[in-house]
């Protein structure tokens, strides 16, 4: 009985550990990013960023039924991490959840998620590469940014853009 109880405790520990790892990592990113921003006199909400390096694995707009019929709610943005126990944000995956199997549509590597203001500070040696990554990771994981990326992906998926261009 004691063995079972102990095993349960170990499972509980591991589960709590794994479940809280990523949210608490993101929270630490926020605290660290705010601290760095304060030191540099930056306002995180005012920083403009570029997700133009997002790579699409399928040219959009596409005639694939899974993509053509997808609604905005079907666009799922998933944060991609290195390691389970020691997470580090690696990128943002764009997945279309409509259809039988999820469709990997695009990927934004975090190293290509650039912020001009930080590039400038970095070139002037006011910001280290590690600090840059903390701020860019925090902003890339922010729900507002993910919403914006979702809007952009959905816009690209629409055929009306081409009609307007014509």
């Amino acid at each position: 009985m004691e063995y079972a109880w102990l095993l349960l405790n170990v499972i509980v520990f591991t589960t709590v550990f794994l479940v809280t790892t990523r949210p608490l990592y993101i929270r630490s990113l926020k605290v660290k990013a705010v601290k760095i921003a304060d030191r540099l006199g930056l306002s995180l909400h005012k920083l403009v960023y570029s997700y133009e390096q997002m790579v699409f694995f399928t040219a959009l707009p596409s005639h694939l039924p899974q993509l053509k019929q997808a609604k905005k709610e079907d666009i799922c943005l998933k944060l991609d991490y290195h390691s389970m126990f020691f997470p580090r944000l690696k990128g943002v995956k764009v997945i279309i959840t409509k259809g039988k199997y999820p469709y990997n549509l695009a990927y934004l590597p975090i190293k290509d998620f650039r912020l001009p203001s930080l590039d400038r500070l970095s070139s002037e040696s006011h910001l280290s590469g590690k600090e840059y990554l903390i701020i860019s990771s925090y902003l890339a994981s922010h729900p507002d940014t993910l919403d914006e990326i979702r809007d952009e992906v959905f816009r690209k998926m629409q055929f009306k853009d081409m009609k307007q261009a014509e």
Partner: protein
Amino acid sequence: MEGLFLTAAFVFVAFIANTFRFYANGYINRLIFVMSTVLLVLLEQWFATPSHTSWLLLFAIAATVVSFHFSGGMIAAALSSWYLWITTGAMEPSVYAAYFLFAGSVYAIRYYVRKIRQQRDRWLEILTFNSKQLNVTKDVSQAMQETFNTKRLLETILTSMTAGHGLGYNRAMIFLLSEDGNSLKGIMATGPVRAEEGFKIWEDITANRYGLTDLIDKKEAEKSDQQLNEIVQDMTIPLQEKSFLRDVMESGYPLLIKEADTHDGLMMRFYHTLGLKEFVVIPLLHQGVKSGVVIIDNLVNQKPLNMHDVDIITPLATQAAIALQQASQYESVERMALKDGLTNLYNQRAFQQSLSDDFCARPFSIILLDIDFFKNYNDTNGHMLGNEVLVQLAGVITKSLRGDDLAYRFGGEEFVILLPHTPRDQAIKVAERIRKRVEETAFPKGELQPEGKLTVSLGVAESDGTADPFDTVEFADQALYEAKESGKNRVAVKVGM
């Protein structure tokens, strides 16, 4: 009760460890993770009866292997053995051996998982790289197909190399081979002259969310990158002297320069004028024909360049070479279609096209010109000499025009000159200048003309931009008729429109 307390303690330890470990550096983070599992062992030992320390230590060993790899795992196995020995007082070699074996097994699994993960990351990297290249090539091909205009093509090529939606390099410059093949001439460039300027452009692009097409249009409309363009367009590189550009043109192979060579004069010139330190030179090559080079660098973000970049740019440069060749052929055909074969002035078709162009919606003047007694000239001297006169006259007209004026062969011995934004008084001055210069020019057998020299009559008309341009031509024709009727070798004006 004890069990519940222990569960709560385990949850608490997991939560607290995760709350704090991300604020520390990588090593401390790992140490906190290991220490949290060690704390579990201690908690269990203090509060649970009977104790299960011997096998719970496996948990701590596993955490250590995950955190500190093989060596960490071995140390953890040794420490666990020692701890078990001092707490129990009994020597249990089989348990100790199991600890080491367990550490080795966890490491093997970890190694395998890591390998799979690395492989997955590598595949993802290759996939994103190739997809990116494919997307850019597709976008650029599409943009290139929309025009045969060389300038627009060059803008498209350069923008696709520098825009974030494209390849994302900081600067790109195009140098094209001169017609005689002896030099490279700077044609167009995109990017800043100084890094500071680059950050401003970069912020503007990011804030406005400009796409590739927006940037191409923006470049055309705003005449951006003027300073860099002025410097590049001012550069002519002779290929007789030995230089890195001559090497590229001769070999047809790309060149990656990691550091400017102080012994290469041309490289030093690029370094001093453009701050070019680390850069890539790609030849514009199609079917063995070299039409120029593209130079790429990362002045702003100082991102290092490597052969990977060469592989990325080369297909785009090849496509650019094809497009430039096609555009050049198209432009020469278009030129032939709009030019008069004899005089090399624009022809009647070009004139009709100009009348439909926007500039006729603004004030302009027209001069119609006709050679006096040209039938007599042809009858007396033959058509061959008549053609010579037409060519010579076209030269006189061209030299008498101002910058924006356009001359056309209207047909036979009639010529027409379009003068944009020109009021009647100035048009009369231009017409009079032509008349006088023709009168003063010695044309072959001109002395056989009835007046003893070859002369022309000119009719001038003006439009305020609201009238039908073809009506203005009609008025100029009436003025020309008036000049002929009133004695020839003169300028007449149709007034009152």
